[in-house]
């Protein structure tokens, strides 16, 4: 069953191919201008960052006389060394992936529940409003909540049940990468929920009804028909979640990020992912550098190179997700689900 959206057009076939000759209207130009300026903005920001990082930038001192980031990093003034940068990159990627593992299933779960199982009552509307509101809570509140609930209560409980040998030194009852990932997941949950729910709402009723008509149970409909059809919305939600999470520093400061961590959260010794360790994070480094940069001329370059690494890490994660989204779209379009 093909749905009739603008999205199932092929190639250069146009929704406006009605046989009449049309001229490009003013609004087309304007909106095209907006889109083009967005692209220009992106390229401009990237160029600016790279220039600041590697060309020294111009900050009142003569350009060209300031050292670039590579020089500063090789000077090795702790903790601004190449090793620290690497450690922060690893930390950022690890916490983001962990967060995705938590937020994607949970977001899908709640959105499916609201859309399929909960029905349309005034209290489900209230829940939706509450979820929207959640997105507006200042991020540090999540940090406080994560500290009180996850670190002390849940973590303390885990310590008592599983790691009572190591007490009173806390294993999970103290800030660490696991709690940071869960806190970030809570932070970005509304984004994913909203995106998935919007995707579900856009599906034509015929899809669901057809599936029921063919005898599928509700669960089978959800898993076999509805979810695959909204995969693109899911991935969009995850993209937005990842993009937000890599930039949130305030909650992380409370639940597990440190300025300098001697060991990586992933390593070759079992169990490979150390969920209770504190970790370094590029976003926190940028914040720290902006406020407490070491004296000397390479400071702006340093901030820019750390910022650039963060942007590149986020970009690779989101590009990977976007490519995935494109393949979903293609795959499910081929199968005639869309």
């Amino acid at each position, binding site marked *: 069953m093909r749905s*009739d*959206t*603008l999205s199932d*057009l092929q190639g250069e076939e*146009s*929704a406006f*191919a*009605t*046989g009449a*000759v049309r*001229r490009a209207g*003013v*609004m*087309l*130009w*304007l*909106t*095209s*201008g*907006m*889109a083009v300026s*967005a*692209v*220009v903005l992106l390229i401009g*920001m990237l160029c600016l960052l790279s220039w600041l990082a590697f060309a020294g*930038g111009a*900050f009142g001192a003569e350009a060209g006389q300031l050292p670039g980031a590579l020089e500063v990093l090789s000077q090795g003034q702790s903790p601004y060394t190449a090793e620290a940068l690497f450690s922060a990159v690893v930390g950022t990627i690890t916490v983001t992936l962990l967060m995705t593992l938590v937020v994607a299933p*949970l977001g899908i*779960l709640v959105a*499916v*529940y609201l859309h399929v199982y909960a029905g349309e009552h005034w209290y489900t*509307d209230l829940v939706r*409003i509450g979820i*929207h*509101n*959640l997105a*507006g809570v*200042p*991020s*540090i*509140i*999540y940090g406080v909540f994560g500290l009180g*609930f996850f670190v002390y209560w849940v973590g303390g409980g885990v310590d008592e049940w599983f790691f009572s040998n190591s007490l009173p030194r806390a294993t999970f009852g103290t800030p660490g990468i696991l709690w940071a990932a869960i806190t970030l997941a*809570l932070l970005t949950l*509304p984004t994913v929920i*909203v995106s998935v729910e*919007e995707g579900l709402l856009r599906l034509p*009723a015929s899809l669901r009804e057809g599936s029921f008509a063919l005898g599928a*149970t509700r669960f*089978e409909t959800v898993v076999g028909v509805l979810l695959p059809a909204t995969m*693109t919305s899911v991935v969009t939600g995850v993209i*937005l979640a990842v993009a937000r999470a890599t*930039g949130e*520093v*305030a909650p992380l*400061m409370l639940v597990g990020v440190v300025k300098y961590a001697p060991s990586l959260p992933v390593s070759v010794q079992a169990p490979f992912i150390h969920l209770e360790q504190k970790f370094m994070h590029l976003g926190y480094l940028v*914040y720290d*550098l902006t406020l407490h940069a070491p004296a000397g001329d390479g400071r702006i370059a340093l901030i820019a190179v750390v910022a650039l690494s963060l*942007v590149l890490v986020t970009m690779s994660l989101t590009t990977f997700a*976007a490519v995935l989204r494109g393949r979903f779209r293609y795959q499910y379009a081929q199968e005639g689900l869309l």
Partner: protein
Amino acid sequence: MANRRLIVDVVAAAAIKVASVSVLLVILGMFAQIAITALPLFESPSISIGTLSTTRTGPAADLRVSQDSVANDVGSLPGFVDDHRLGVSNIHPAVAPEPTKGSWLDVRDTIIEQLHLKAGSDGLAPSVITRYFIPAGIQAMSSISLSRHFVVLDRAGVIHVYRLGRSQARATFKEPVEVSGINRVGWLDENTFALYSHEQQPLVRSVKALTNTLSLADLFSFRQYEGYPLPTLTWQPRVVDGAESKYSLVPLLWGTMSAALFSLMLALPVALGAAIYVGYYMPPVFREAIKPMIEMIAAFPGVVIAGIAMLWLAPRLQYALAEFIGIVLTVPIIVALSGLFLNRYFQTKPGRHFSKRLPMVVLLVLAIAIYSGAKLGEGVEGLFFEGSVVLWLEHYYGLSVSYFNGVLVGIALGIAVFPTIFSLAEEAIFATPKGAATGSLALGASQWQSFIDGVLPIAAPGIVAAIMLGLSRAIGETMILLLLSGNTPIQSSSPLEGMRSVAATLAIELPEAAVDSTHYRVLFFSALALFVLTFFINTCAQLLRRRWRRRYGVAA
């Protein structure tokens, strides 16, 4: 076979329900924590009778209630103009409490006045902040406690507990006390005081919930503070001794909302315009390339945007305000005009879309428009504003222009919320059925008309959701506001001045506030107030969405 599938369905339904409800409960828990932390702020104090034990357990020093120590006056205060000066406290003797440095009390028989030094045209002069009326006359009075309260026993035997700054008693113990012989009142700790007479055992009264209490008026209305020339709405929590805490939430809420407003003013047109272009006008084959590219802006986290804006943009913007306004005003006009004149060169062939060259041409036009907008702004600045808009505004209109201003915040925050609004709005537009537009197109309507009449009503709920999420992001964003707003709680409506947002204030002050202190609770209350405010906005948006869905709905 069928049974197994049914079992799977029922189990899955139960599991999904349980899991979702638990997630929602965790979310609820977060809100509950905010409320539970904040609301004890408004507990009203009450006085009860307590008993005095001569030994106090706990780490504080032993309480000595002998007459000698009563006379020792450990808690004496500078500037107390009266001979009822007594304070007995069980605080470590090395610590001398100083609850108020900024004001003092002038005590007469039936009136107590709180005075402070106010800076006037000829220096500092005393001025009255509050007057306390005790018609029955004062029998005995305590010193000022660390929570800035004092106790008065009047001759009718009624005990009143007052707070500095508020002429109404915070708590009153109405059962009259036998007053003969009582000549001293002393604080035993922040919540407990005792009435002493020479012969008998002291009568102990304790006041519940005295310390962490404020009223809504303290948080939202104009207040005359010690040392201030006029009543103000001020946010300045006490961090060092002796200062009065100022907890007005109005500047903070105002700052959050104006930052969100400025950012949406800049981001909404661009995000929605881009979404319409990518989702409606543009040939879908390009979408896979262009949409991720625009979404890449989301890869710039708030902290990076904030850092780069503070270090690179802010120094330049202060000189380039006129150019910026010029660009913002002229670019849309020039692009639109060029559309009018150039569109004859971009016509469709039947069945084909517009030339791929169109974005390139638009790019060129954009570049020319930006350049000319900047030059125009400069020129106008030179001609009409004596070379500098900033100085002109300051000189002729008394408008002050700050280094950290709303324009800077608007640009940075706008860049931060743009991807959210763009992504979700574009998805909403792209997923509308083809038939929505082709019908009116076939009847000869222009593309834009078809969009407004056909596609927009169907996509509107999704677009509203996008805007709401963007607004929420703008309200909750911390780093950009922390570094770029100047954190000045000035409550200005001008985009040329700074602001202070709730999120930035929380980031600055929450980690250092003592748990369960007034400051801590007020911070949580500010988050609660923000939550209530956004609740109204989101409710309106949700109602709108429901209505549009019902009217134009595609899916059930």
